[in-house]
């Protein structure tokens, strides 16, 4: 087992109203097979033993599927490589490297403490249209609703979104269009999602704006960091769906 040494710059901020600043920590003797979060655990344990307050960060599954851990490592939301921050391993860094860890800098994600941000804005976007009004009940026969394989695959690719917020964090404009596009695509191309199809994109985009997110400039930074590999083509679908929905409403079209 080899150990490594890092120079950390970690963001400390007491609360959303506090100014916050970086603290500099020399993280010595970190096992190279540690994940990034395990490294932070070690650093936090040492700080606790020294009577200092540890750096707050969120995590849950620690296997890259829940989207809870979110931080910006050396300017990259969710850290280098594909996957969430918990999937980043210390062996990927150079020994002695300076690593800067910041929270997501998105106005619509207010900072709670240190690296923890409140991503409820994404929940409110989902509540405004990212659902289907299907009644639950006895499972229908699988052959009742036929879905071509390419459509099912594309819907699954979009549904892979874990709502982690990295797209808005990576976007120079803090735009969540990859997240919104993923949901609009996932539900919009499946038969079950047709009932709300016209209003879905319209309502989700309106909520997105009300929450104070920015607008897409087709930079594709979102696609580069998305831990779920959601393609930016979902944004093209969202653009199409939105205009269709808005025009339908404007002219009073039912279908």
């Amino acid at each position, binding site marked *: 087992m080899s150990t490594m040494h890092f120079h950390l710059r970690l963001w400390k901020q007491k609360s959303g109203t506090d100014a916050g600043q970086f603290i500099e920590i020399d993280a010595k003797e970190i096992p190279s097979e540690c994940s990034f979060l395990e490294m932070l655990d070690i650093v936090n344990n040492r700080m606790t033993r020294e009577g200092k307050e540890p750096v707050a960060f969120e995590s849950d599954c620690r296997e890259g599927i829940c989207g809870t851990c979110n931080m910006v490592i050396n300017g990259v939301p969710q850290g280098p490589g594909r996957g969430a921050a918990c999937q980043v391993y210390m062996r990927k860094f150079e020994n002695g490297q300076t690593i800067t860890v*910041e929270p997501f800098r998105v106005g619509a994600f207010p900072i709670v403490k240190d690296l923890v941000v409140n991503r409820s804005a994404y929940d409110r976007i989902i509540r405004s249209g990212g659902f289907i009004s299907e009644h639950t009940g006895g499972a229908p026969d699988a052959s009742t609703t036929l879905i071509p394989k390419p459509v099912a695959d594309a819907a699954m690719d979009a549904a892979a979104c874990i709502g982690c917020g990295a797209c808005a964090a990576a976007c120079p404009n803090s735009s969540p269009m990859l997240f919104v596009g993923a949901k609009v695509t996932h539900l919009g191309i499946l038969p079950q999602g047709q009932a709300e199809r016209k209003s879905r994109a319209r309502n989700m985009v309106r909520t997105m704006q009300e929450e104070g997110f920015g607008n897409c400039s087709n930079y594709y930074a979102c696609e580069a960091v998305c831990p779920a590999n959601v393609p930016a083509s979902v944004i*093209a679908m969202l653009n199409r769906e939105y205009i269709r929905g*808005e025009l339908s409403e*404007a002219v009073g079209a039912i279908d």
Partner: protein
Amino acid sequence: MSSEATSSKKPCGCCWPIFSSSIGRKWVVALTGIILVLFVIGHLLGNLSIFAGPDAMNAYAAFLKSAGELLWVVRIGLIICVVLHIWFTITLWRENLAARPQKYAVKDHLSTTVYARLMRISGLTVLAFVIYHLAQFTWEAFNPDYKGWVDAQGRHDVYRMVVTAFQCPFVSGFYILAVGLLGMHLSHGIASLFQTLGITSKKMRPLFEQGGLVVAWLIFLGFASIPASVLLGLVKTTPVLPACPLCH
């Protein structure tokens, strides 16, 4: 449901929601962008008549002038496109700035291209150039002598005016710089409009991006070839006037 998200930042209700929405305004920018790109291509093809000699270029210029009122319809249409294109971009940009109140300490450009990041700078420089360009060749404000130049057929001698102006390295230099920035603007703009209008897919996007780059390069090389040819002495006028319309 979304009523819980009460906010004063609601899209304005007095105008058609499309024009206050994020995506609606981007559509306007994309659609006006298409018209402006088509104008740029048409303008380039017309300008290339300079390589066919003074007669061809002056005939082309006389043909444009003969359009009369139609010319003004086109001009006003283009001005409206420019105003909408810039106005909506500025309103979107202001929201984008407000959406990130605190910047990152460490910046990684990720997969963003330099063309995309320089859109505002390239666009506004091209706007400044267009105003200068109109003042130089349409209003003929820098060199009042231009107005009196006529060729053997009695047409305005546009060929002589253009060649004379481009003999000044500063005029040619600014022109080449401006069309270079125009090319950068279009390489992102052309590829981007397919995404904004939603007429692309995972498979098609790389093709649109490469296509946008190729078209942008062709437009740049096409425009830049004119001052370059004048500076290299490949396109000449008689008599050669050393006077620069800016310097003299």
